[in-house]
């Protein structure tokens, strides 16, 4: 779909991080883990739309939210958006998260802005009666984005920030391991950190859940046309091949990706 949306709200959560709510004029059947290419400018500098995950899906209002971090020219321009402004939206794109059929408990593991797609997932899981446990990591307590919102739909929330003394020799996935030792997770989802992704991949073996990672890559088209957004993925046979984050992903089985 290629549509003009309208800003219904924008607010800065902490300096450099914004939550943007957009209204779309048509039914927009997106799933958590999918993303949209968004362009909020008419100039050719910046040129291309930028990819953003759905942070919150509000189909009954015809709206969705994204949570974004200011990185360069595109996101800088987005901070100037205010209610009523028009943005171009291509989406929903990509495969989205899968919640295994009959799952009873899942975990989300995220660092920093990697939280963005996780709220939508946790909200959907909770709505479907699936228990959610959240494991959040960030540089500082302040940068535990959407912490409160996630807590609301999580049975338990574990946080570890770099400024805590125990963060010296621990990752938030160590906390996951401790919980997993006595509680069965059907699936674990990770986003926002290579280290955490690798950790989840190794815990997958040990605890037998299905692990998924939401990948990032620079994108131009978002739809498989430009062949730009590759990541390396191992096939069943162990052979590595390029896959396209936009079309084959952005969500991949965590044991398959080469990170």
């Amino acid at each position, binding site marked *: 779909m290629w549509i003009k949306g309208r800003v219904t709200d924008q607010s800065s959560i902490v300096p450099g991080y914004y939550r943007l709510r957009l209204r779309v004029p048509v039914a927009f059947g997106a799933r958590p883990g999918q993303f949209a290419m968004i362009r909020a400018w008419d100039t050719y500098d910046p*040129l291309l739309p930028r990819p953003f995950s759905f942070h919150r899906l509000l189909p009954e209002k015809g709206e969705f939210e994204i949570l974004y971090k200011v990185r360069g020219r595109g996101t800088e321009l987005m901070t100037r958006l205010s209610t009523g402004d028009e943005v171009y939206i291509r989406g929903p794109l990509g495969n989205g998260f899968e919640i295994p059929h009959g799952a009873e408990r899942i975990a989300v593991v995220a660092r920093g802005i990697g939280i963005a797609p996780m709220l939508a997932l946790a909200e959907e899981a909770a709505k479907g009666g699936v228990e959610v446990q959240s494991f959040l990591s960030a540089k500082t307590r302040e940068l535990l984005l959407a912490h409160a919102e996630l807590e609301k739909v999580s049975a338990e929330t574990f946080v570890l920030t770099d400024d805590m003394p125990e963060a010296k020799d621990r990752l938030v996935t160590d906390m996951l391991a401790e919980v997993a030792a006595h509680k069965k997770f059907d699936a674990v989802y990770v986003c926002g950190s290579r280290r955490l992704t690798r950790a989840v991949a190794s815990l997958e073996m040990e605890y037998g859940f299905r692990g998924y990672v939401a990948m990032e890559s620079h994108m131009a088209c978002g739809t498989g046309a*430009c062949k730009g957004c*590759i990541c390396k993925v191992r096939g069943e046979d162990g052979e590595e091949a*390029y896959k396209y984050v936009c079309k084959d992903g952005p969500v991949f089985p965590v044991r398959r990706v080469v990170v």
Partner: protein
Amino acid sequence: MPDVDLTVQLGPLTLKNPVMPASGTFEYSEEQRELFDLARLGAMVAKSVTLKRRPGNPAPRLHEVTAGLLNAVGIPSEGIHHFIEVTLPALAQIDTTLIVSIAGDSVEEFATVARMLDPYRGQVSALELNLSCPNLTHGVPFATDEKLMRATVEAVRESTTLPIIAKLSPNVTDIVKMAGIAREAGADIISMINTLIGMAIDVETRRPVLGNVVGGLSGPAIKPVALRMIWETSQSVDIPIIGMGGISNARDAIEFMLAGASAVAVGVASFRNPLVMLEIVDGIESYLAGHGFGSPKEIVGLAWKERMV
């Protein structure tokens, strides 16, 4: 206002309108089909295909620069067999002219791929030669070396009865000469321009940004260069030109036609606005109608034809 007939004749090739995607920038995906009926395009142009399966370049493959995109995708390809078995039947469903772009590491590879596609003349309307990939034995791109250019086009000419579109690289001193060689060697149509070679460096890592170090620059940044090359070439070489390079709206497309392009292709702009090709078709039609022209060919090269009067 006169009735406008958008049909264009490109040598042996007839298109229902002069607007098509640039090779490598458009796919026949489900997402795309939902957006609009691809039969509304003047032609469908497929991503360059090679003889064997190739992975393409390492990441990162894309880097946005000011008003342009650097791409170092390379030519990832499933190979010609997969193309013929899987991709072609799908593309053949689209009710418009199909142009297949072919590429290779050697003159022989180009010829072989052309020969393998010849039996599919019913579905494929023309072959476009992506001459910008570097030749393996000589290390320079086919399109920047006079001998390689001639040899490749000649070899393909001998291997197929399909119309040949030679795609020129802008990275040359004398584009008119290269176009002339392509024509002499048997090309029916010229397409231009492919990307300008560029690069970017990350000042923090102090390394080239792209996995392949250098990449191809396209988008609005290259439009003035593309226009100038088409202006020069169309006045000297008497085969039709498909113009491309930064076309982002109908006005741009009309500039290219006034400069001497008989048809236009759109690359990066479709990433910005996936409906842009339809807008360009409509925009050309209303420009023609509004200015008293009955068909696209009446404005081709007008910027120099009218000057000469």
